Each structure stands twice: as C-alpha cells, then as structure tokens.
C-alpha cells in the first residue's frame, strides 16, 4: 500500500501511470509524450515495476509497458476503508460537540440567572 503511494508520489511517475491508463505503450512513445530523456523514463518505469504497478513485455526491439490494476485497486480499497472509519468517528464527534455546546449554554444561562437575581 505505502509502496504504491510512494511510487505515485513522483509527478513524472504519476503521469506515466496516467498515460498507461489508456492502454499499453512502448517506452519510446512515453519518452516523446513526457518530454523526458529515455534513461529518466526507464528509471521511473523501474520504480513503478518494483512497486508492482506496471508489467513489461518485449515485442521485437520494443519494450512495451502495461498498467497492473491490482495495486491501485488495493490502494483505493484501503483509502475507502480509512474514509469510512473516519466518517463514522467524525459523525460521533459531531454529536459530542452538540452536547458540549448545549451544556455550555446551560451553564451560561445559569450564571446569567444568578447575576440577575
């Protein structure tokens, strides 16, 4: 999970993943589209490959990269679980705050009542 996040944290790598979303691409094609040098793109692809985010196959002289959806689906599921836990926590916190506000209001009214008398 964290390996996926770390791999995606670099803007160029994120862009590579976005390019591969539309389908497999040869390295040369990505070099042209990203405006980076080939060694840089290869380095990024290696990181993505180590994180399990891309697969490579060799077709004649070309190396063609494809996205592996599994880690991204895992990341999405993890973030969704995380979001759900904090949503219920914060809904309960809303109730706690309403309670605190009304108690504060009552204390103030009592004080005001006392000073009036």
């Amino acid at each position, binding site marked *: 999970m*964290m390996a996926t996040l770390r791999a995606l944290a670099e803007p160029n790598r994120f862009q590579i993943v976005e390019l591969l979303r539309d389908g497999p691409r040869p390295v040369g094609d990505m070099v042209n589209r990203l405006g980076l040098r080939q060694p840089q793109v290869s380095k990024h692809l290696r990181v993505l490959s180590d994180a399990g985010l891309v697969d490579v196959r060799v077709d004649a002289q070309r190396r063609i990269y494809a996205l592996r959806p599994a880690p991204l689906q895992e990341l999405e599921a993890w973030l969704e679980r995380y979001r759900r836990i904090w949503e219920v926590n914060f809904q309960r916190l809303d109730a*706690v*705050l309403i309670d605190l506000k009304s108690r504060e209001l009552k204390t103030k009214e009592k004080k005001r009542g006392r000073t009036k008398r």
Partner: protein
Amino acid sequence: MKNAGTLKITTPTGHEIAMTRVFDAPRRLVFDAFTKPELVKQWLLGPPGWTMPVCEIDLRVGGAYRYVWRHTNGKEMGMGGVYREIVPQERLVCTELFDEAWYPGEALVTTTLVEQGGRTTLTSTMLYVSQETRDAVLKSGMERGVVASYDRLEELLASIE
C-alpha cells in the same frame, strides 16, 4: 468545500494522508474533544462493535497517550504515542504507533484547528516515514511544503475499476 460534515481525504505526498473536516463548533470545544479522555472515548471508536476501555492522555510536550479498543468479539487493539508539540486549541503534533503496525516505524500526526464564524476546520496530516526521516522533519520545525497535490489520484483510481 466549506460544508460541515464533508470529509476530504487526500494523499499530498507518497508518505502522507491528509484529512479535512469542518465542525459546527468553536475550536476550543473541538480541541477538548481531542484531548480530554472522557470525551475522546465517546467518539474515537472506529467501526461499530468497538469500545475504548483505555484512554490515557498526558497532555504536555513529551507526555504520552495510550488508547486501547475492545471489540464485542473480544479482540483488542492498542495504540499510543508521545506529544511533540502542543499549541492549545490550535495545533497538536504527536507520534502514533499501533501495537500491530501495518507500516514500518511510527507515524507523525499533525492536527490543526482553524476557527471561522464559530465553525472549526480540522486538518490532520499523517506522515508515515522511517524514524530517522521523522526526526529530521521534527528538527526542521515541520516547515515542509506539500510537494504535489494528488487530488488527481482519486480520479485515477476511479478510472481503474
């Protein structure tokens, strides 16, 4: 997105998860709800079925906190850490480590509260890094910029399905 009740989660960098949520209450009450055990116990419970039998908070820099949750099925889960920075009603920085951590090292959690018109915007950032990196970050005074915004990540994830 200033509506109370909308939880926003982003991953600003590869090691961070940030949450933003607006509460319809002044920040002194939100701060109390985060730092007084009798209040924390009422809401920091996670999914249904869990209670919080242990909630100890020593609210001072260097002071520790310890939380233990118990499920109706008997399972227990513990977590704790140390406060590294405290600005009452405004800012809390603490370390966070689950007894059975799914990530290496501790997380560093920075919570800030900003009040406007009686409402409070809470931002909580969880930084998951090695201890060495975390200490370096603390030394540098937490003045780290957000490297890149990954709102696009959500879009990307949605398109993968």
